[in-house]
């Protein structure tokens, strides 16, 4: 079939319109979040606060158990990141074992991940809104509460993963509180709400350490996969 120039132009038109560990220190400069960061303890699963159990709904539990059983069989078809390098989405990208950079600017906060050159953007100049089609990373809106960057993410694609096994739906909503514990330590408290999968909201806290300034290597996940390397950090089956 040949390309349809009329259709192409129509689509074109449509689209064209369309820092001393452990001791909290006050940090007054919001751009103090700027810099290179890396997760303090690499992990494949979300770190639940106080090791609390995940409050699954029956549907959520069923999907989780199905994913776990498939992983134990070595069948990762349920995981688009591990099976084909698709974006890990949120909040899983925040578990990457590779560094990422934060650029705090007036209207956009950018997170530039080394992993597959992924970019996460936080809109600082608008109010959250709904849209018909969700995305893997969702739409993110940010605001400052003192020195804490609060990010509200919604409009997610259904049937994705929060980490290596935990399922999510298009009802997912994330609220993050990013705050410097000290000049070289960044905490991201992620509050996860998804009434299809969980009976209540729950929190995970991920900690990052500041890294030396560096230009990232060009990571191409599909090339790593083709070379027989793991697209995403190796998993350990959950007990």
């Amino acid at each position, binding site marked *: *079939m*040949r*390309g*349809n*120039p*009329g*259709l*192409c*132009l129509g*689509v*074109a*038109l449509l*689209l*064209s*319109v369309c820092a001393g560990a452990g001791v909290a220190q006050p940090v007054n400069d919001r751009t103090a979040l*700027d810099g290179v960061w890396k997760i303090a303890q690499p992990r494949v699963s979300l770190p639940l606060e106080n090791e609390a159990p995940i409050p699954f709904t029956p549907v959520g539990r069923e999907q989780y158990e199905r994913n776990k059983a498939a992983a134990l069989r070595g069948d990762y078809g349920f995981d*688009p990141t591990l*099976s*084909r*390098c*698709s*974006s890990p989405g949120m909040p899983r990208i925040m578990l990457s074992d590779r560094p990422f950079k934060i*650029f705090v*600017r*007036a*209207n*956009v906060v*950018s997170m*530039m991940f080394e992993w*597959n*050159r*992924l*970019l996460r*953007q936080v*809109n600082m100049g608008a109010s959250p809104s709904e849209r018909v089609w969700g*995305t*893997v*990373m969702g739409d993110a809106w940010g605001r400052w509460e003192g020195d804490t960057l609060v990010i509200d993410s919604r409009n997610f694609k259904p049937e994705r993963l929060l980490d290596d096994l935990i399922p999510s739906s298009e009802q997912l909503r994330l609220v993050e509180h990013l705050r410097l514990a000290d000049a070289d330590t960044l905490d991201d408290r992620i509050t996860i709400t998804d009434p299809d999968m969980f009976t209540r909201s729950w929190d995970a806290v991920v900690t990052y350490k500041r890294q030396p*300034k560096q*230009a*990232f*290597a*060009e990571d*191409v*996940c*599909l*090339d790593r*996969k083709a070379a027989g390397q793991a697209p995403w950090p190796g998993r350990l089956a959950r007990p």
Partner: protein
Amino acid sequence: MKSSCLGRLLLFGLLACCAPAQAQPIPPGFNPFLLPPLPPDAPKPSPDPRNLEGAWYHQDMMEVFLTKTMHGDPVPMNDKAKALLRERAVADKSGHPLANAAVRCRPPGPIWQRDINFPFAVLQIPDEIDFLFEEFHGVWKIRMNQPHRPSGRREYMGDSVGHWEGDTLVVDTTNFKDVFWVNSDLTGAPLSRDAHLVDRIRKIDDDGPALSVVTTIDDPAYFTSQWSISRKFIWRPDRAIFAEYDCEDDVGRPDGVSRYGFSDAPGPGEN
């Protein structure tokens, strides 16, 4: 399965699906990439000529058939380049165009990346200037005032080092990982892994804030002399939040690009 407009659209972006062999002539003056004017209260770029930060957009009609230099001369291709271009054209006409880097969901090189009509953002820190693109997870990293890395480490986007000459950012790029295509076309002109590009980038005022980028291409493997192209990118703060691009979700499947009718292009260094 033959390539379809939809497949090209999904993998490539807009212009590719209006590719050469299939396209009807575009009416004179028609530009599907024209954006409405910015509102008067839209954010302005920094007045500092050495601060390029913000969102920029290629609004001009893309040169799908890149046959002329910025001075209007024919692109000085050698016989090898002409033969390769012919091979790509034949493959495209057969309905099974060769899958270039962009189709294979790999970084397509800095020229293509800038040329497609999608926005990019510039972020600057003292030692580095990053161009981040909406499409292809594109990242063009410019290390400031540093020498090139040893040629053993090659990347799809090349190794770029920059310095300021007055208010012009001069970027020198080489050490590419793959043979790539200059222009966003299924029969694009080739560039070799050892191509040498020099970009001269400066802010201009052309009915509004814009970036002027003049790229000089030096690649004896495919061209008989140096030649240059000139592009302009307009200031578009309203396009600073990018649409999601996740080509791996399609191309990473076992049938990869073949499900869209593409043939696999030769791998790195095979041309």
